[in-house]
């Protein structure tokens, strides 16, 4: 059973805020593994997975960013038609709702690694294991 630590950072709708945040992370020598931006008229939430979660958290805290550390599941989705559908059907079977999902930039041919945030992590992990759908471990996600 393995989950990935993701940081969701509150980004106000002001010019330069995203650049400021990503520069802060870059200057600390932290690599963004993947990211996703959710936006509304007033604000955005930048969700990131990084190679050094502890350092990133300290950095965000020190610099006064509003953030939440959340755990998400990484799934090794087969890169073929129906790959995502199979995963979602499995979750649906046990009534697990997907809050949001986004993909990793792929490095392994034949695999589309995907980040999924669900409302019931335990149930999701159990059904994925039962269906022999491979989970991306935290280590794999951070690429240590």
């Amino acid at each position, binding site marked *: 059973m393995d989950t990935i630590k993701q940081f969701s950072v509150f980004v106000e709708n002001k010019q330069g805020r995203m650049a400021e945040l990503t520069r802060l992370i870059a200057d600390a020598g932290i690599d963004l593994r993947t990211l996703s931006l959710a936006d509304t008229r007033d*604000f955005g*939430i930048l969700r990131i997975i990084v190679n050094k979660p502890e350092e990133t958290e300290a950095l965000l805290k020190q610099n006064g960013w509003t953030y939440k550390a959340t755990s998400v599941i990484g799934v090794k989705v087969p890169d073929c038609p129906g790959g995502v559908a199979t995963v979602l059907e499995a979750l649906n079977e046990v009534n697990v709702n997907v809050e949001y999902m986004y993909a990793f930039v792929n490095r392994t041919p034949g695999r589309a690694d995907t980040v999924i945030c669900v409302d019931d992590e335990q149930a999701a992990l159990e059904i994925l294991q039962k269906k022999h759908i491979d989970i991306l471990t935290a280590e794999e996600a951070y690429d240590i």
Partner: protein
Amino acid sequence: MAKYWREDIETMPREDMKKLQSERLVKQVQHVYEHVPYYRDLMDKKGVKPDDIRSVDDLYKLPFLSKADLRDAYPTGMLAVPMKDCVRIHSTSGTTGRRVVAFYTQHDVDLWDECCARAITAAGGTAEDVCQVAYGYGLFTGGFGLNGGSQKVGCLTLPMSSGNTERQIQFMRDLNATILCCTPSYAAYIGETLHDMGLTPDDIKLKAGIFGAEPWTEEMRRTIEASLGIKAYDIYGLTESSGPGVAFECEEQTGMHINEDHFIPEIIDPETGEVLPEGSVGELVFTSITKEAFPLLRYRTRDLCQLTRGKCSCGRTLIKMCKPMGRSDDMMIIRGVNVFPSQIETVLIEQGYSPNYLIEVDRKNNTDTLDISVEMNTEQFSDKMKDIQEKERSLASAIKTMLGINPKVHLVSPKSITRSEGKAVRVIDKRKLHD
């Protein structure tokens, strides 16, 4: 510990106080009629002569003074002594129009200090205390007013003025300040900064705070009291009446005792000018009765307020005024509804939000819009977009229940709303730009 600064005055039986007020009022009216042509004209127009004023019961016969009168008379039209007899001026900020300049003789400064000394004593201050004055010094009355009161009581006075918050906290710690005087919004900011510096109320020696010069709510009082580990006392005054110290709070914290031996309060109907019975809500009007340089008779403060003469557990017999419910110039009329920023603040704090907010009013397609930006803390932030939107909706609906109109609420990140070191800017009314 001394409980009162002037026990004889502060606990004087009502009948004696009325007699003292009447004597002083008669003299004050004569002084004004003789030396202030502007007010003499107002009295003549109304057909009132100084002889018609024999006691406080005749007060209603006098004409009102408004802020507009003071602006007309700018700069020296209300001055009742030769300028060479004055020792100081103070001035309003002029944010709502032309400035008003108030003049003081040494006698006026002494009486003002006395009023502030009573406030500090009521907050538990004695000559043993260290009083940090973080109100602005200068034309604004806050700094000099509390400074004078503090020295009169014999406190070691730290004339910090406002700003440089980390230095405020350093002096507060190094010199063991026990009383803090500033605006409530600055007190809240000092509390926040203290916690940001990794300190707690245990790291400071403050026991009391005297906060005024802007409207604040009971909820804000509790927030400040918790963040600084103090008891927070309200103080009231306005530049036109000398400054802070017209009224002050005692340990009961249920309204401010008015220094009635210097100021006579009335509550009037702001529309008709009719004097309302005790307990009614209306516009607060003050008559100074001991001023030399800048005496004001029946000055309309535009503060909406209530007076009560119930028995106070502190033993003072001085009449009490409630926290002003709003100032007629703070009142916004949005879609025909009267809205005070303090109403919005009450809802925010009830719902667990910080008192850092910004209200923006605009007019789009001939309809007034009300946008409220509120800071959320890390606990209130959610990773899920819909949770934040749900929080915004639920806050908007709580505000709608209070005001009757629907605002648009924007949750923003902590510290993104500009902090104030003096009076907080809470409202931006963009409608004025279009007119």
